[in-house]
């Protein structure tokens, strides 16, 4: 792992520590009073703060997860080299694409 990947993973871990806590806290708070999916969507639609928060969350996860998975695969399998790196870049793109699509859908639905 290069030092920049290491820093990226540690930096995104710090972001995820906050965003995951807020995400879980929001879920617990939202369903506490028995909100329906429709009522939740009513609050998220057009809410720019919601979109920015989840965009940061998704991008941090898309950077963090493939770097960690690359290290795990290198330690536990014989997979090495450029194809592994390209696969992890593809996984990062997939996570970012699917995550941002979901956040945009909830924001603009």
């Amino acid at each position, binding site marked *: *792992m*290069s*030092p*920049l*990947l*290491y*820093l990226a993973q540690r930096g995104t871990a710090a972001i995820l520590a906050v965003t995951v806590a807020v995400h879980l806290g929001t879920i617990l708070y939202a369903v506490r009073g028995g909100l329906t999916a429709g009522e939740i969507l009513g609050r998220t639609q057009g809410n720019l703060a919601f979109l920015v928060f989840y965009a940061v969350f998704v991008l941090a996860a898309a950077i963090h997860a493939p770097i960690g998975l690359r*290290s795990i695969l*290198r*330690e*536990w399998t014989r997979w090495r080299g450029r194809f592994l790196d390209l696969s992890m870049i593809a996984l990062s793109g997939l996570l970012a694409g699917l995550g941002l699509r979901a956040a945009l859908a909830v924001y603009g639905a």
Partner: protein
Amino acid sequence: MTARVDHAAVGPGATGALRVRVRRGETVAEFVVPRRANQTVLDVVTEIQRDQDPTLAYRFACRVGMCGSCGMTVNGRPRWTCRTRVATVAPDGELLLEPLRNLPVVKDLAVDMEPFFEKWRRAHGFFEPGENPPDDFVAVAPDSPARQEVDAGIECIACGVCYAACDLVTWNPDYLGPAALNRAWTLVNDVRDRDRDGRLAAVAGDAGCHSCHSHMSCTEHCPKGLSPTFAIAGLKRETGKAALRRFWRRG
């Protein structure tokens, strides 16, 4: 292998008998050795080799914890055997002796240390004075933070105990290992050294300091009480700073 138990070995001066099992390749040989006051594990191996089985191979030199030659796995844990008392590690009188983990076995308890020292070279674990050595001595205050960083890791005797204790070396045979990285950290903090950038580049990457999981097995087992884990953490900081500097310059 058939157990070779020599009950006659328990002789005068002994306070009892030790049951010693020694891994010899794929087999385990059994011996009974007299238990004596203040006996070390190296004493036990030496007694077996001299009195019971002269074909037993092991390595030692100084017998006083300076040379780092006598590392072995004792009851599952890597240790320096010359300073390990039997009473501490085998209160029930049972010893299982095996070669150090993560290194090729030459014979019985002797391992080939070449891969270990090759990684010291790869980590630039040698002092680099530069093309033009300074005209005068470098004044280093003993209580300066940089000197204290060096002091924390400088007493390494290269026994390989930390290397044998490290799971990362087992999982990733290319990983430089705690001792080489600890040595690199002492040199990174050496104000006289002229290869700081080269050394930081050598210890970064998939085989370097960033692979460390901070399990702290090296720190737990180091017979000299050093903490390679903290040395590796220091290398992570310095390589990170160096990478950011390069990144900004390029940007």
